[in-house]
């Protein structure tokens, strides 16, 4: 049985739409738009939600959550006054093991983690609570390595696709990430939330225009420039990972469900469904990568085999 990546969604990584939807109309709108995405996912054949969250940072390679039923609570580092997020999630531990195999087969350093009390990140909890509140579909989440760049992240996305296909799962991939990621650095009246600057807003809208056209690979190629110009979240690794997991092309029907400010950052909900035709395959600047061969650390002593 061959599995399949059915579709992908970019989803916000801040908890405020879940914790305090009544404090701001945009936050409430994001929560309500999640209900539309949820309906779309439920109408599909999905039996796995596969997440990459920029709020789960790793250093030692890539960590994959493999606790079948993580149950704990998290209090946001900034937004603790809005309350705690208690969670009880359903994870696909078998798939996590298969993702680990496929990641290692492509040269990545990776491990599964399953520990009582492990702090699942707020981005993952928020996404799953809003998109899969009754745990109908099991999930799996992979971390965002702080050192990885485009090539390594693409390989991680391709390993996700390998694992989905080998496992027979019908997966929806979720990139949990902000767009522009400059926050207000002071306490604001939530009613007055807005995108931090007009420049960030314009870049966000440009990116969303391309995603609305289904041009995911073009957006992946544009990610470096976007991050540089608009304070993109974690180099926009979530988009690199999604683009790789979805096949590195522009053959999608894009839907921008929502776009709102959350404490100055750009929060968007975008769906990408595979389509027969595309707006056009442009000339891509950056090549893909199939296998990860380690950091090319020009400063390290010449001691190959030591820390690969």
């Amino acid at each position, binding site marked *: 049985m061959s599995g399949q990546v059915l579709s992908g969604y970019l989803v916000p990584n801040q908890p405020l739409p879940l914790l305090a939807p009544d404090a701001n109309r945009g936050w409430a709108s994001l929560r309500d738009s999640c209900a539309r995405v949820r309906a779309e996912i439920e109408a599909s054949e999905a039996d796995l939600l596969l997440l990459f969250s920029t709020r789960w*940072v790793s250093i030692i390679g890539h960590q994959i959550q493999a606790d079948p039923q993580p149950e704990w609570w998290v209090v946001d580092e900034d937004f603790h006054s809005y309350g705690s997020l208690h969670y009880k999630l359903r994870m696909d531990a078998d798939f996590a093991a298969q993702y680990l195999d496929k990641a290692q087969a492509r040269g990545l350093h990776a491990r599964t983690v399953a520990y*009582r009390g492990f702090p699942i990140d707020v981005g993952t909890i928020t996404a799953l609570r809003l998109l899969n509140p009754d745990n109908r579909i099991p999930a799996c989440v992979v971390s965002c390595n702080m050192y*990885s760049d485009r090539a390594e992240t693409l390989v991680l996305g391709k390993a996700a696709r390998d694992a989905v296909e080998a496992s027979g799962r019908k997966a929806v991939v979720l990139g949990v990430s902000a767009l522009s990621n400059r*926050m207000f650095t002071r306490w604001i009246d939530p009613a007055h939330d807005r995108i931090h600057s007009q420049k960030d807003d314009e870049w966000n809208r440009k990116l969303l225009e391309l995603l609305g056209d289904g041009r995911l690979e073009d957006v992946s190629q544009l990610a470096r420039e976007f991050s540089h110009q608009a304070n993109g979240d974690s180099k926009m690794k979530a988009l690199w990972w999604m683009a790789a997991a979805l096949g590195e092309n522009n053959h999608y029907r894009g839907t921008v469900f929502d776009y709102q400010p959350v404490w100055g950052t750009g929060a968007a909900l975008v769906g990408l469904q595979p389509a027969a035709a595309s707006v056009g395959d442009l000339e891509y600047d950056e090549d893909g990568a199939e296998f990860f061969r380690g950091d090319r650390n020009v*400063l390290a002593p010449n001691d190959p085999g030591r820390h690969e």
Partner: protein
Amino acid sequence: MRRGEHPSGAVVGGILAPHPPHLVYASNPPQNEPRSSGAGAWQELLAGYQRLRASLEARVYDVLVVHTPHWKTRTGTHFLGVPHFSGLSVDPIFPNLFRFQYELDVDVALSQSIHDHARDAGLSCQMMTNPEFRVDYGTLTSCHLVRPAGDLPVVAISSVRTAFDYCNEAGDQEMLALGRATRAAVEASGKSALCLASCSLSHRHYTTEPADPEDPAFESIHNENQAAWDRHILALMESGQSRRVFDEMPDFTDQCVAETRDGSLSWLLAAMDFPEVAGQVHGYGTVIGTGNAVVEWDLSR
């Protein structure tokens, strides 16, 4: 002098107290669930913390004030504002090494006072009053390694992201103001405070881990650039040039990928009012390639 007899409050000492959870793991305290192999990595740092604790035995202080890089706040500086926390801390990055059952008393009055002084100096500040908050592992690790008995109240100060959002210079200037506010609040409190900067020096990690994380053959500084910067900063500390450490901090942080970007060391130097006494380096060593030093400034004399 015994506790409570100080005529006025004072910052009686400062510690550079790095927080690799590996050091707690290797010490096998009953609070930590995983057991170490004892293979022997990190000995220099473990010995450094031992020498620090011996040195502190003769000293009197009422409270630990810790600035931690692992409570990362983007909306200003936050302070723990609940009298007692207990719970399980699982490190999201090294969950294989650190699953630590903790109890922590907070000096809420001093915490609030530092908050108020900082706010009056124009800084964006918040008290954290959610009792379900999980105390970050930087605070827990540094406090445990400095004083394993855990019998003193703590003030924990978050790491505001100013250097990341704007630039290193802006971050250091904010830490200068926060350090001064800390010092003023401690002096007004009548208490003796030991201030802890919970951070590494050079901070470039290896992104892989050996089968036994404690395998000493794996450990070395990530590269010579990192080591050279660490040596330079430690030499400045040992020769009492703390002002120069602060002046060079933006470059050190930038060129050495140092964890000082999170502000802890700049805050500590300002809270100590840039002492000219020599910092005593109790130990220096590497953890997954990063440079860590245990350094003590005794300001009580």
